[in-house]
């Protein structure tokens, strides 16, 4: 195994162009498990941790551009108030040790349907910035995930950052697991209320080949919410929203849970997170 340590982003892109099969490594919390268990034996490893701009975030025209190498611990500490949904999901990632090292970029690169960052990125309408020596492009989150552990990136591309708007309303995240730490999601759900556009964003995790939005549920609830004089939501509305979210999934039976359980759990999480977020919206008006 050859180990490359680029010091600048152009250097990293040049290495990836020359070695399209190379595995990028940042926090190592995913890649190292595969190395240790010999699941994956890459010929070339690209260490991205020396590239300063991957660990930075700033705003561009009111949107946040968060470098792919910003660890979860810093997303929680520095962006918790701005990106509450992503911060909630980040708090459920692994353990303090894992959150010190693991990154959203790694979650996106691995593109596991169970990755915790995906539902809040989908719900907030984030875009993924990928780059190669050929140039840079933005991929909307809901076009980024293309299959189990597959994404829309070309072999010569690396993930530079994600772009996400600061929350314009309450956001929620819920996740099912056997304990509160060190858990790969049985299933998960992210929700974002967008009062500025009078829409609701959703993200379903670990209940389909890819993380995905629940489009029918989004359309249904957008027609039900009265943003100007918000009343408590009727139970029937919350239940219907939960049913539509569950229907958007196509889960399987696996070691972590059954398809039936996942659909049931999704409907409960969707119903509850909607209630919590809507109550928060009403309180803050």
């Amino acid at each position: 195994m050859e180990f490359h340590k680029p010091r600048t982003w152009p250097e990293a892109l040049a290495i990836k162009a020359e070695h399209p099969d190379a595995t990028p490594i940042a926090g190592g919390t995913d890649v190292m498990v595969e190395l240790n268990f010999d699941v994956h034996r890459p010929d070339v490893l690209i260490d991205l941790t020396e590239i300063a701009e991957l660990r930075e975030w700033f705003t561009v025209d009111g949107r946040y551009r968060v470098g792919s190498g910003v660890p979860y611990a810093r997303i929680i500490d520095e962006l918790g108030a701005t990106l509450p949904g992503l911060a909630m999901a980040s708090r459920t990632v692994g353990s303090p040790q894992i959150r010190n090292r693991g990154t959203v970029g790694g979650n996106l690169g691995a593109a596991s349907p169970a990755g915790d960052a995906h539902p809040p990125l989908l719900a907030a309408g984030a875009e993924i910035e990928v780059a190669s020596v050929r140039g840079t492009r933005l991929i909307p989150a809901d076009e980024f995930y293309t299959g189990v552990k597959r994404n829309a990136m070309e072999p010569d591309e690396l993930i530079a950052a994600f772009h996400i708007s600061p929350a314009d309303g309450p956001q929620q995240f819920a996740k099912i697991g056997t304990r509160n730490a060190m858990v790969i999601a049985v299933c998960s759900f992210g929700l974002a209320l967008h009062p500025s556009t009078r829409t609701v964003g959703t993200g379903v995790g670990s209940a389909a080949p890819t993380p995905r939005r629940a489009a029918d549920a989004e359309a249904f609830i957008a027609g039900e919410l009265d943003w100007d004089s918000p009343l408590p939501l009727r139970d029937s509305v919350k239940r219907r929203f939960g049913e539509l979210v569950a229907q958007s999934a196509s889960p399987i039976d696996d070691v972590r849970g059954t398809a039936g359980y996942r659909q049931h759990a999704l409907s409960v999480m969707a119903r509850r997170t909607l209630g919590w977020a809507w109550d928060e919206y009403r309180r803050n008006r």
Partner: protein
Amino acid sequence: MYDSGQEPVRDNENRLSRRRVLGSGALLGAATAVGTTVGVGSGHGDPAGPEVLGAGGVDITLRVNGRDRALRVEPRVTLLDALRERLDLTGTKKGCDQGACGACTVLVDGERVNACLTLAIMVRDKEITTIEGLARGDRLSPVQEAFLDRDAFQCGYCTPGQIVSATALIAEGHTRSAEEIREWMSGNICRCAAYPNIVAAIEDVAR
């Protein structure tokens, strides 16, 4: 109106407005307009270009417990294996080798990480602290003393990781309640279930 989106920490807000003045429109060109920069490596900007280490052995130096230690490793060797098998620092334990148990917890620049998920060659310019580096000669660290006083172990296999993790947790200030301690120790599993004693030991030191 709900406005949490408009209230990132005041500190950031200030820096953000300065950034707009600087005109950070260009995405990749805006490297100077940073939100927060942490630990830019010493090699940054080296005109020598990217470093390539071959598939065979590589001579490296690790700074462990205040001492520079020279060793030869293949690029795929983890920090955990380098510590245990090359440097004879066997206090750091291998439990799961996949970051789930916390037995291999060490400090890298004061931050707790799983040594099994860290490549040795990726921490050459860092300060590494293992369980062997906590005592001063024969004088145990306060956390080590408290674990003895509280009998915070049974078989002892997870204990080095627990103690290193607890040392960082106390420095982080996550000790306001037993519940908070449990939450922030959640990356360290004890199969003997000495948890009540571990929490009591940490509370003793934090007090």
